């Protein structure tokens, strides 16, 4: 008889709206800070950002709402060759994570076993966010639910209202 799979208690899961993932490539002439300033000037919010400088130059990824895609493509057109888009994507966020390595390990083992695309991961002590295909978010919930247990009165996965700066 198989032993029961251990589940980790978490506070909740949250799914995002439809997003676009941008991979930003800095160069001598173009720095990420310039791209971010242009996006800010046009009031485009970045949902999640990961930048690193392994080879001395800072570059990375960010996400934005799918509804901002056309505007972003237009305003970032001046940075030709410096970005790639993956769409449509979405995120699943697990919270709180509380720096539990065992939880993170179990999640990624389950994710890898399910074969879902994994475009971006960002985890702090409070939450873990995984970016995958937007159409596969329900599958992502199934995979994550094998590893975590949710409270009885857990709120809906998709937010029922949105805060937007105008």
């Amino acid at each position, binding site marked *: 008889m198989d032993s029961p799979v251990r589940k980790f208690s978490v506070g909740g899961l949250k799914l995002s709206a439809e997003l676009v993932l941008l991979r930003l490539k800095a160069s001598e002439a173009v720095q990420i*800070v310039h791209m971010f300033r242009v996006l800010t000037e046009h009031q485009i919010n970045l949902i*999640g950002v990961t930048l690193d400088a392994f080879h001395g130059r800072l570059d990375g990824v960010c996400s934005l709402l799918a509804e901002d895609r056309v505007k972003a493509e237009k305003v970032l057109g001046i940075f030709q060759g410096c970005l790639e888009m993956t769409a449509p994507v979405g995120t699943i966020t697990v919270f709180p994570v509380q720096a539990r390595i065992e939880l993170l390990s179990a999640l990624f083992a389950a994710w890898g076993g399910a074969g879902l695309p994994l475009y971006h991961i960002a985890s702090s*002590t409070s939450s873990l966010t995984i970016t995958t295909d937007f159409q596969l978010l329900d599958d992502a919930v199934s995979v994550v639910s094998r590893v975590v247990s949710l409270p009885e009165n857990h709120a809906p996965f998709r937010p029922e209202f949105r805060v937007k700066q105008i």
Partner: protein
Amino acid sequence: METIAFYRETIIKTYGFFEKTGLSLITVEFPVIQTGMYVARALDSVSTSGSSVLLLTVRPLAAGTMRLNLLWDEEEKERGEADPIYHLLEQEFKGLRWRKEKEVELIFFQGPHYGDRYGIASAALGAAADSDVPLLVAACIGATVFWVLPKGQGAPARESLSRAFVVPESKDRN
């Protein structure tokens, strides 16, 4: 139904800056098809020390490669003492491009609706660029901004951030 609220913010407010020093950071690049495996290996290697993971990022590079950054608080070792995690990582990441940096520093901060507002990441990155702060990793996760910096750079980074973000003084409550 739509609710609209107005407020003026001449400089972005934050709840405060928090710092940690003496941390360890590994960065490794691997094929995208093996992401789950290498993320698990990195976590398992660090877990042997009983440490807490403070930050984990994995993101795409060009041509089917991913880059992982894992930040944790490793117990300080005596000078000359062996680093068992380093040797574990050497075995797990054999043949890959990777590095481990010791005694790095973390500064993080959050504010109201940071995840819903434009301009936060730009303000933070602009502060770093204006002061030549050498960022190793920068991440915006939810409503929190994280900076990972080389040893000794936490204080200068905090100073540069203070020019773009303000911690309001608390009012006395009678």
